[in-house]
């Protein structure tokens, strides 16, 4: 157990599924202490998952998240808002056109009314979407690249490289992000979207790096990596070919998380007046709304939509992340599903497909037994 407790990472799934399950399928004693998020065997052959799920999927299909309600809603939200941000600007007025009558409530001409300066709110929302999302995306990419470097290189290489990179990571982790961003932004006279994205990315990679570091460290000792090392493959190639593909789900989750944080960060910055100067984002809309007392005079059509879109997009990202969590740690999906399937089976037996005289009222070990009070009817 390493000194740095942050290396004992956030999701350390236990020994594989219920002993009974794995015994039936592959018969070996459940010895795989999966040290980290990535399963011992490359995801393409999830034998130990088979016990609690449908037939194994091979290759790429195995890496895709299982289809579920959460995934669906997540996709709808994120893709929907993305589409909105891309297409809506084409259908709306110029957001900086100020000759409209000001402070109008929603009407057929101005779908969301107008601001205090006479700009069309819907137009601002549409263009602002592009602004916010671009900052988010760019910052997300920067953050992931940085966390990849600091995390994987440090975790895989070990030695003093690890010590140095780890130290930098840990320091960046502890120093509070937003205050730092505020201070930096305050010094910059003019701030473009790119600069803001840069600042957000530069301050948001540390968390991901920590996770990647512990993953890389554990992957390093896996058999297939050891084999590659013994065969004489160069470190760089090993990282690219053996380790990165297995980290793909994790990286995706981190990317989505980084985008979410960047969008929230940009919104906060813009709200404080430190956002991209001259651009329109959802954050700047909120800032202007507040400055013009929209919150106090009840013109909800001005301040609710931008915040709501941020929240919905963020929720979509979070749901996608959750689905990815379920690939990374199949037990998150299979355990609840297993409990459910037993409950259903028992219900069926009671309902009219009896398998034997003693079948019906045997509670086995599940949530209802934990309840202790009631036998599940």
């Amino acid at each position, binding site marked *: 157990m390493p000194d740095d407790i942050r290396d004992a990472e956030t999701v350390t799934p236990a020994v594989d599924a219920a002993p009974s*399950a794995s015994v039936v*399928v*592959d018969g070996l004693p459940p010895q795989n202490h999966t040290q980290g998020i990535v399963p011992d065997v490359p995801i393409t052959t999830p034998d130990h998952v088979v016990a609690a799920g449908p037939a194994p999927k091979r290759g790429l299909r195995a890496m895709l998240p299982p289809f579920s309600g959460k995934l669906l809603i997540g996709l709808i939200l994120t893709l929907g808002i993305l589409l909105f941000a891309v297409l809506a600007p084409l259908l709306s007025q110029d957001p900086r056109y100020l000759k409209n009558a000001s402070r109008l409530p929603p009407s057929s001409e101005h779908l969301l009314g107008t601001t205090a300066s006479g700009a069309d709110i819907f137009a601002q929302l549409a263009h602002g979407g592009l602004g916010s999302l671009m900052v988010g995306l760019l910052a997300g990419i920067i953050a992931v690249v940085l966390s990849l470097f600091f995390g994987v290189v440090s975790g895989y290489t070990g030695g003093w490289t690890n010590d140095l990179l780890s130290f930098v990571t840990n320091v960046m982790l502890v120093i509070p992000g937003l205050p730092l961003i505020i201070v930096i932004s305050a010094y910059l006279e003019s701030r473009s979207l790119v600069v803001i994205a840069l600042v957000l990315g530069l301050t948001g990679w540390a968390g991901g790096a920590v996770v990647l570091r512990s993953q890389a460290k554990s992957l390093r000792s896996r058999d297939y990596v050891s084999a590659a090392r013994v065969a004489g493959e160069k470190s760089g190639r090993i990282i690219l070919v053996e380790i990165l593909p297995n980290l793909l789900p994790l990286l995706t989750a981190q990317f989505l998380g980084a985008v979410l944080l960047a969008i929230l960060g940009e919104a906060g910055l813009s709200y404080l007046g430190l956002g991209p100067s001259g651009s329109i984002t959802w954050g700047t809309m909120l800032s202007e709304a507040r400055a013009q007392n929209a919150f106090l005079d009840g013109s909800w059509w001005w301040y609710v939509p931008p915040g709501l879109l941020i929240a919905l997009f963020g929720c979509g990202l979070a749901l996608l992340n959750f689905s990815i969590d379920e690939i990374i740690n199949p037990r998150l999906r299979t355990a609840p599903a297993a409990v459910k399937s*037993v409950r259903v089976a028992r219900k069926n037996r009671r309902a009219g497909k009896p398998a034997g005289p003693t079948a019906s009222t045997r509670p086995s070990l599940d949530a209802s037994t934990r309840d202790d009070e009631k036998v599940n009817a």
Partner: protein
Amino acid sequence: MSAVPTKPAGDAGVAPGAVPVLTARNVSIEYQVDPVVKAVKDVSLTLHRGEILGLAGESGCGKTTLAYGLNQLLKPPALRTSGEIVLHDKDGHDIDVAALSGERLRAFRWDKISMVFQGAMNSLNPVITVKAQLFDVFDTHRPGMSKKEKLARSRELLELVGVDPNRLNSFAHELSGGMRQRVMIAMALALNPQVMIMDEPTTALDVVVQRGIIREIMRLREQLDFAVVFITHDLPMLLEISDRIAVMLRGEIVELNSSENIYEAPQHEYTRKLLASFPSLTGERGSFVRTGSGTGDDTGEVA
């Protein structure tokens, strides 16, 4: 239920005067996955007081699933779909294990039947001491015990299995593999159970430690007179230590007889195959250590 149980089928090779302690009849266990997997098919067996019953078979034959089923420990998606499991208590009455639930099931567990799991590496709670975990057992099942009594009993248990009693204050990670397994056995004995189910208790340990643990178990059984269901794929070991052996194949018991009978006159083809596939240290390939002579009908077929 207190009728004298009739001898179920497949109960050959029982020692004279043996009294049944656990009877399982027509037990079936399924995995509720898609498609449904029948892990245990209509299994019946009888365990007698003080007897060591070996449960042998290859990986995936369902022996562990059966063991979990006997103790009502099945985890979803496993579900027992039929069968009767009865414990014939020392004090005379019978307990329908399959019908137990809630509070009664909890009281029953560990008190009458205890279990030592496969690979005790992770069977101990990593954040509390061994003492705390032993005390947990007493607090739950013997609420009347005073702290002094609990401590005394805990020390006694550790000594029983050959572990230094000062280890009570250790945490799981401070113990070696062999020690952990011994502690698990000590815990299993804490309430003087009548049946102990041991699922591959020595597989993860090296051979010398293995031997020590097996000897320990045999000695304890002599001393405390509990019955053991010993699950393993190591048939030679079973031949040495068990009174009777049940051979399982794909969810069914294909042969159930005394060790001698199994060794000398195996009835089922699979049993023969199993016997023939273990190499010996001396003698010909496929032959046994005991006699050093070849056995088996299958010509030279070593699995």
